[in-house]
């Protein structure tokens, strides 16, 4: 072998040898892929309840109701209120209940929707419906006619519409929404073949939408194209809180002439969040009464690096609802980063926090789980050692739609082993 080849071979062997030693060693030490996923937790048999009885909130039921099952919504609202009353009677303080007028309103709405004759219901709706409303861009929309062809350009509007109107009234869906099959079943979205795309302008025109739901971040060219086609535009607010989501839902209810359905869904969201709060209360109460230290939960997002959501985000607000359990927001607060959307956090900081529960919203969960369990520092975390490392669906956690209830459910479900 010539000297030149020897040099190249030596260099190649040096690099390949280094990588082989560095990376091969780790893969041989791979732990068994015991991904403690949310699905696994959800499938676990519920732990035997202690008095007071646990409020049974089932994920599939929640999903069905949020997808527009109005009867189920009304039924669950009542069931949860009864459960809350039972909890109160057992002496549990801080139990949350829907205000009486809202509970009553939900049942009135149910009666309107299920027992009133269609013609009569239509008249009641028309009387109840607003005559005009102002969108987030300051434009006034006159509601003197009933729209029947909707173009949801944003995920939030599509999500509301899929729950509230028949699919034949939705002319198209935002690109890639149909990929979220965990929220929007394929058989449902398949009924709406058209995607909203800038290259589909002619097809969209042929579909004759009457009103389009857009946002401030919508592409200006798309907005202009819709305006040119004579489509009425309604600019939605970019929701940053559950209150924003509810407000947009009510507004949309008036536009699509489903004010009662939207109002019932809004009340359901409130009731579900309260029921989940109560569920959390039943989990933490035994700890408080026995003076057991409350476990600490750290919530992280992961893309290339780890980050913590701040109180400005919806995820942050869900964590705030979890009260003393959560240490993520307190950490953001101590670093005076509350005004940011996300606060980067490095591994050393995570290890110093050493949470009892670690919940990570990520996409490539299998790989991340493997990485965490191989990392010398992270695998020593209490949460990892005690199998309290959970991965939650990032698209649900960050979804500013009615499915935010599911996001909260997922967080609380991770704490199911608290007792």
């Amino acid at each position, binding site marked *: 072998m010539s000297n030149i080849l020897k040099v190249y071979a030596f260099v190649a062997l040096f690099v390949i040898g280094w*990588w082989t030693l560095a990376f091969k060693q780790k893969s041989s030490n791979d732990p068994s892929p015991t991904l403690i996923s949310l699905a696994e937790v959800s499938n676990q048999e519920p732990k035997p309840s202690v008095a007071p009885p646990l409020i049974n909130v089932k994920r599939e039921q929640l999903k069905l109701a949020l997808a527009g099952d109005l009867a189920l919504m009304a039924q669950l609202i009542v069931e949860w209120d009864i459960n809350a009353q039972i909890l109160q009677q057992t002496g549990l303080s801080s139990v949350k209940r829907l205000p009486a007028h809202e509970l009553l309103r939900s049942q009135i709405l149910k009666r309107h929707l299920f027992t009133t004759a269609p013609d009569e219901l239509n008249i009641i709706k028309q009387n109840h419906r607003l005559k005009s409303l102002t969108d987030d861009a300051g434009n006034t929309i006159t509601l003197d006619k009933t729209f029947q062809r909707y173009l949801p350009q944003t995920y939030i509007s599509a999500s509301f519409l899929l729950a509230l109107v028949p699919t034949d009234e939705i002319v198209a869906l935002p690109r890639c929404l149909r990929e979220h099959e965990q929220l929007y079943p394929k058989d449902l979205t398949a009924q709406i073949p058209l995607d909203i795309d800038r290259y589909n302008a002619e097809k969209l025109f042929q579909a004759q939408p009457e009103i389009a739901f857009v946002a401030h971040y919508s592409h200006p060219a798309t907005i202009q194209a819709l305006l040119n086609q004579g489509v009425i535009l309604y600019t939605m607010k970019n929701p940053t809180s559950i209150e924003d989501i509810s407000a947009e839902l009510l507004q949309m209810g008036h536009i699509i002439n489903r004010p009662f359905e939207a109002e019932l869904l809004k009340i359901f969201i409130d009731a579900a969040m309260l029921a989940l709060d109560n569920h959390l209360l039943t989990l933490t109460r035994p700890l408080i009464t026995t003076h057991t230290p409350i476990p600490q939960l750290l919530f992280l997002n992961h*893309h290339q690096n780890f980050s913590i959501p701040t109180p400005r985000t919806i995820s942050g607000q869900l964590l705030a609802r979890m009260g003393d359990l959560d240490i993520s927001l307190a950490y953001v607060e101590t670093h005076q980063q509350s005004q940011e959307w996300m606060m980067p956090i490095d591994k050393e*900081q995570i290890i110093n926090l050493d949470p009892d529960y670690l919940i990570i919203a990520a996409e*490539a969960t299998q790989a991340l789980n493997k990485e965490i369990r191989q990392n*010398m520092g992270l695998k*020593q975390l209490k949460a990892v050692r005690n199998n309290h490392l959970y991965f939650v669906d990032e698209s649900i956690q960050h979804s500013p739609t009615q499915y935010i209830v599911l996001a909260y459910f997922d967080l609380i479900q991770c704490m199911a082993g608290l007792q």
Partner: protein
Amino acid sequence: MISLYNTQKKRSFLKLNIIISVLLVVCSVFTLLLGDTPWQLVWQDVLKRFDGTALPWNPLLDERIPRLIVIICTGASLAVAGAVMQALFQNPLASPNVLGISCGGGLLVVLVFVLEWHLEYPFAIPIAAFTGSLLTLLFVYSLSRSGGKVQLNTLILTGIAVSSLLFAIQAAIMYALRDRWMLIQTLTEWEAGSTVDRDWKHVHMQLPLTLVGLYGCWFYRSEIDILALGEEEAKNLGVEVEKVRWRLFLCVALLIGGAIASVGMIAFFGLVLPHLVRYVQGPANHHLIPLCILVGSASFTAMDLLLRMLEIHALSIGNISAILGGVAFLVLMRGSRRFLHMGGRR
């Protein structure tokens, strides 16, 4: 007279080396000291390593030291790669970014991210970065060659054109995948260049490439000096031009590949730093290469330290270096124009 001049030069080189070394040591020490864990606890645990009672993870040994190694390697790699390119192509504008080398490496790394190979094979990133950098460099080089010679006046233009093309392909990939916003966020964070959470995995990805690359550049530092005079002159002086150039290309690709793999895209650093060093020390590559290693490491470490001390989370080290580098480059350009107006008198 000449001997006095040489002695003064040597003294000034030595002085500069000492100053930069002190700066590097100070910044490194602060980098190692700075962290959320109290130093006392960190140190106690380090000592426990000797009797085997320590925790399996230590902030100093498993987080701060590997991060420091990555930072030092990246700073040195970018600065040396820039200096070598400028000397090889006899063009002060030649740099990994301007010639599209970083874009080439970046494009293949983006593909690795898209195909999710990095999750199973971490070394896919440095391999992709190195391969992309080398292929781009060879492509630009071959396009700029005409009649057996590199056309220096077209080199930069070719580099910019190739860089634009590669950037356009990358943008097209990202546009096509725009709805996979989680992937886009991952790519955005990587493209911005970051030193957060760099551990031994990143060291292993980068260090072998950097060691070989730096050694190669240092080994050929005298030849680089001669090559900077021009191809003909170098041949006349006995330099095996083709062989040396090819090896230096490999070294540059290794350096850039390593830096891209572990930290991401860092713009302007490789362009500006060699100018600054040359401005202070003079153009002799014999001194320039070792000094670039020192200055690159020290300045990148200082920048990272500053970012950490000020807790600037909104910007990454890549953003900061691009902004500072851009400003410094403008200042340098303005300075050299004034220098030309003054007829070359300083």
